[in-house]
């Protein structure tokens, strides 16, 4: 049994133009202590997948159409809000993209960390404070004891993201979902935060699902990768396999977009066209209209994920080759 087992998950949103499917038929596993990278463009459904697992999507307009989410063997979909509250922050935690807006501006950072402990563990105020302090020190906030009474606006962006991480990990969750944790940060800070996440993974033995559109972040951190496109998983692979021999044309396109120093071209490579809007997705393979290797059969039906050794892709060429 994996720590997190998502099976055939489909989530839709009610909009003015009827119900629109955001993610479709998503299946994934995360093992204890593993770092799973989820990569894809904005709008590919990465965040919706994470928020569905956390039960944080506003319903309505969102609705889980089908599928199952099991965490430690327990089905999360359909769980009462009260039982879900016990899992959030203690079993599964989440770190968001924008450390600037993700912290409450009118509460001290100490209080924001301590209230997480208070929500899950019946310990004294003094013990809560000690836990918060210990965690702040662990995430590398200098003179943490004095920082407890600081407000978010008194910290830098990188420090705020460290506080977010401290807040998420203070109850030792088994799984951390990090949604674009470094996108809003300076490049120098990005590497520090990623290193911190990996150190904490080793130390606390938790699993991490890291969501990003940055292939560099994937290469640096992930054990295994999912590539998402237009609400579906198009490729799944161990990180080395993905970079060495990408199977899906979209993955290849993504990797070609990463500029290298050896590259002798003036222009950056880009995948032609744009992500289809949810609701206007093509029949058959979603990537077909932008794909250079397209054949008539691509429009016939959605190709299933196929392949061996944990490396699978949803492309009709994979089975044939």
């Amino acid at each position, binding site marked *: 049994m994996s720590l997190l087992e998502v099976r055939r998950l489909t989530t839709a949103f009610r909009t003015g133009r009827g119900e629109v499917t955001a993610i479709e038929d998503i299946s994934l596993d995360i093992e204890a202590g593993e770092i799973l990278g989820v990569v894809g463009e904005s709008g590919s459904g990465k965040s919706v997948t994470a928020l569905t697992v956390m039960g944080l999507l506003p319903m309505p307009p969102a609705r889980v159409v089908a599928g199952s989410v099991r965490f430690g063997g327990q089905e999360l979909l359909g769980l009462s809000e009260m039982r879900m509250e*016990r899992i959030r922050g203690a079993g599964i935690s989440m770190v968001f993209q924008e450390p600037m*807006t993700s912290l*409450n501006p009118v509460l001290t950072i100490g209080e924001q960390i301590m*209230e997480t402990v208070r929500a899950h563990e019946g310990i004294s105020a003094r013990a809560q404070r000690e836990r918060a302090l210990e965690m702040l020190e662990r995430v590398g906030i200098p003179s943490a004891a004095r920082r407890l009474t600081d407000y978010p606006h*008194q910290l830098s962006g990188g420090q705020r993201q460290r506080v977010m991480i401290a807040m998420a990990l203070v109850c030792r969750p088994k799984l951390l979902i990090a949604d674009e944790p470094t996108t809003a940060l300076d490049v120098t800070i990005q590497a520090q935060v990623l290193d911190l996440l990996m150190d904490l993974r080793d130390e606390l033995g938790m699993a991490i699902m890291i969501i990003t559109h940055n292939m560099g972040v994937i290469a640096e951190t992930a054990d295994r990768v999912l590539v998402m496109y237009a609400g579906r998983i198009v490729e799944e692979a161990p990180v080395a396999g993905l970079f060495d021999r990408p199977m899906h044309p979209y993955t290849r396109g993504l990797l070609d977009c990463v500029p290298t120093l050896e590259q002798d071209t003036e222009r950056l490579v880009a995948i032609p066209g744009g992500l289809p809007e949810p609701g206007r997705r093509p029949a058959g393979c979603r990537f077909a209209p932008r794909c250079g290797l397209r054949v008539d059969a691509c429009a016939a039906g959605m190709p299933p994920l196929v392949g061996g050794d944990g490396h699978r892709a949803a492309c009709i060429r994979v089975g044939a080759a």
Partner: protein
Amino acid sequence: MSMFGVFLQRLASAVPIMLIVSLMTFSLMHFIPGDPAAAIAGLSATPEQIKMLRHDLGLDEPFVVQLVTWYLGLFRGDLGRSILMGQPVVEVMLFRLPVSMALAAYALVITLLLGLISGIFAALRQNSWVDQAAMMFAMIGISMPNFWLGLLMILFFSVSLGWLPTGGYIPFGEDLVGWLKTSTMPALSLALLQVGLLARITRSTMLEVLRQDFIRTAKAKGLKWRTVVIKHALANALIPITTVIGIIVSLLISGSVVTETLFSIPGVGQLLTQAVLNRDYPLVQGGLLMVTAILVLVNVLVDVSYALLDPRVRHG
């Protein structure tokens, strides 16, 4: 800056406002037609009697001399004597102010309770029947003139049902039940417009705050929804709502003129109306100055509460 520092700074900036207001009321009263001496002397008085009275009241002095005399008194804490009642203005006002303040406070309590609660529930149940009903009620409150609502209530509760007196006033120090009986209708008619205003502002501000990222963070930590709404959302929404509450307090105080007249409540509003009609210069000038001072103080308190509610202001 410390909270006390904010308080002192705002208080200091209120001094020029008070000067301008006092100058304006003084000038206005002296430039509108009408003569307090003639009003006091009555219809049968001879011109000589009126002239003597004008001299006794100091009204035959040039405008500038009267102004300077008044200011000199003001700095000694003396606002002069009411021509009509013959008593010091400060004394008359201090006798009437508690009546108006009690009424405004009662109306404010009603406004805060109904406005905040209905606004919060409307936001939490956006587009539901609760929301629609609350917003319709708010719209009616805003659209209905308060003197008309007062008249309707008198007709219904006093004339038809006979539950409450049509007017009059019993101080709460004497008889709390009596005070409630005489004050509830005036306070309701005064408050209802403000309830609508506050409910709508609270709803839109809460909706805005509930969309913020930190609300999602709070939920992701596993906090109870009640905690998220009160501790995280409301605490942030109160910052803009406080501005509106400050305006509402000003409106409650100034709106009492009509309400006190309608329900025959012997408050400041009724007093100043009488003073204006009788050209009681010292009472109008001194009375308005004291009311202005109260309004300015309310605004200073609003500014201080920003610092209390928002750490970014405290450290800014």
